């Protein structure tokens, strides 16, 4: 009888804690040991022990395969909390950013009176900082939407050549300023791909933006091929500083920065993580082929659009 009481005490003390800490396998193992001990001391009949063991094994199997329902509920609650938190924080941050941006623009446009050259210099600096802050907040929001699955993709057949050409057009001036050649070699014959136009435009934009940031001379060029697996691969090749192989794993992870020679060049640390999520939502892959000092080629794949039979 002594063994039985001791077992109960241990069970109430330990099992709830194990379950709370979501170690279902450990708590089941504990129950198995407990049943064995009780059987050996003669407190439990062999038949009953057999039934209990079977039940425990089933519980163990179910919980190992799917996680306990308590775990899932807890995880879901945490995710919902985090989504609500991000949305509230972003809103609270965007409201003052909007007021700041508006006030700076009013002064820059001389709506409130004349502005000296010196003042204008500082207003421009404030404006750049506000726009950087704004980009960071929207990156955090985008990432959260992708992570929680609340970002809805509008999938339609799209012509990648025109997507790339439109982005290239937007970066023409920036590239020319750095004396970089920015070229689109995506062939006319490329079949349409199934994608969300806005999301893929965002990915292409981020890739060109990065390529320009990390390339001081030479060229940036786009090319695309159809692969055997029914996907189109788009390559963005630059003659920039390249990325050491050891650092490449970090590239597409959120908030992990690759050490860059120039601190000024860093963004929110989310750009490539967002791009990865977008491409993966389309069923494609994104990656990089690069070596330090050898330039980089970023690539992503998208499914070829299925031809609609008339």
């Amino acid at each position, binding site marked *: 009888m002594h063994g039985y009481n001791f077992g109960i005490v241990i069970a109430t003390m330990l099992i709830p804690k194990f379950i709370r800490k979501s170690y279902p396998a450990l708590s089941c193992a504990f129950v198995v040991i407990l049943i064995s001990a009780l059987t050996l001391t003669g407190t439990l009949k062999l038949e009953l022990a057999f039934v209990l063991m079977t039940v425990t094994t089933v519980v163990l199997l179910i919980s190992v395969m799917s996680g306990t329902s308590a775990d899932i509920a807890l995880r879901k609650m945490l995710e919902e909390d985090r989504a609500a938190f991000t*949305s509230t924080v972003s809103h609270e941050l*965007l409201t003052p950013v*909007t*007021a700041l941006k508006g006030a700076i623009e009013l002064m820059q446009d001389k*709506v*409130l009176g004349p502005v000296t050259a010196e003042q204008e210099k500082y207003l421009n600096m404030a404006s750049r900082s506000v726009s950087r802050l704004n980009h960071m907040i929207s990156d955090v*929001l985008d990432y959260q939407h992708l992570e929680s699955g609340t970002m809805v993709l509008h999938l339609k057949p799209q012509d990648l050549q025109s997507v790339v050409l439109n982005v290239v057009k937007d970066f023409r001036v920036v590239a020319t300023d750095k004396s970089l050649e920015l070229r689109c070699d995506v062939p006319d014959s490329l079949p349409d791909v199934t994608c969300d136009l806005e999301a893929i435009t965002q990915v292409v934009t981020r890739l060109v933006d990065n390529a320009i940031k990390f390339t001081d001379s030479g060229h940036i060029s786009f090319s695309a091929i159809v692969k055997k697996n029914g996907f189109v691969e788009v390559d963005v090749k630059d003659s920039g500083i390249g990325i050491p192989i050891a650092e490449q794993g970090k590239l597409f992870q959120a908030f992990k920065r690759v050490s860059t020679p120039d601190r000024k060049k860093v963004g929110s640390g989310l750009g490539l993580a967002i791009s990865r999520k977008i491409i993966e939502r389309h069923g494609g892959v994104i990656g990089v082929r690069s070596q330090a000092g050898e330039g980089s080629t970023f690539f992503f794949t998208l499914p070829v659009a299925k031809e609609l039979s008339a």
Partner: protein
Amino acid sequence: MTRKILLVDDEEDLLMVMEARLRKMGYDVTVAQSGKEAIQKIASEPFGLVLMDCRMPGMSGQETCKIIKESPQYAKIPIVLVTASVVEATPEKQVLFHFDDHLIKPFEISQLKTVLQKFLE
């Protein structure tokens, strides 16, 4: 058509900035700091356009919009929802709350001009 704009936002700073900008563009601006105040102002004078913030204490921008649009004498006043959240501005929500267009905060002056031209020119 009147060039009178009703600006609805609970944030005083945003009202100040927007009011200065719109006045400079030559519009006549009236401000309201809540949904309730907006409805009172609409009942007392004619407006060509309403720029409505979405998150406000008390009545939200969407609720206010729905109430205005469901009263026959004011249903024709265009209402533009101003929100920081893309999720609030989906086509489904636009149909649900009857707003005519949206601006995502923080918006560019060019975007504001496009909206003003669409409804007031």
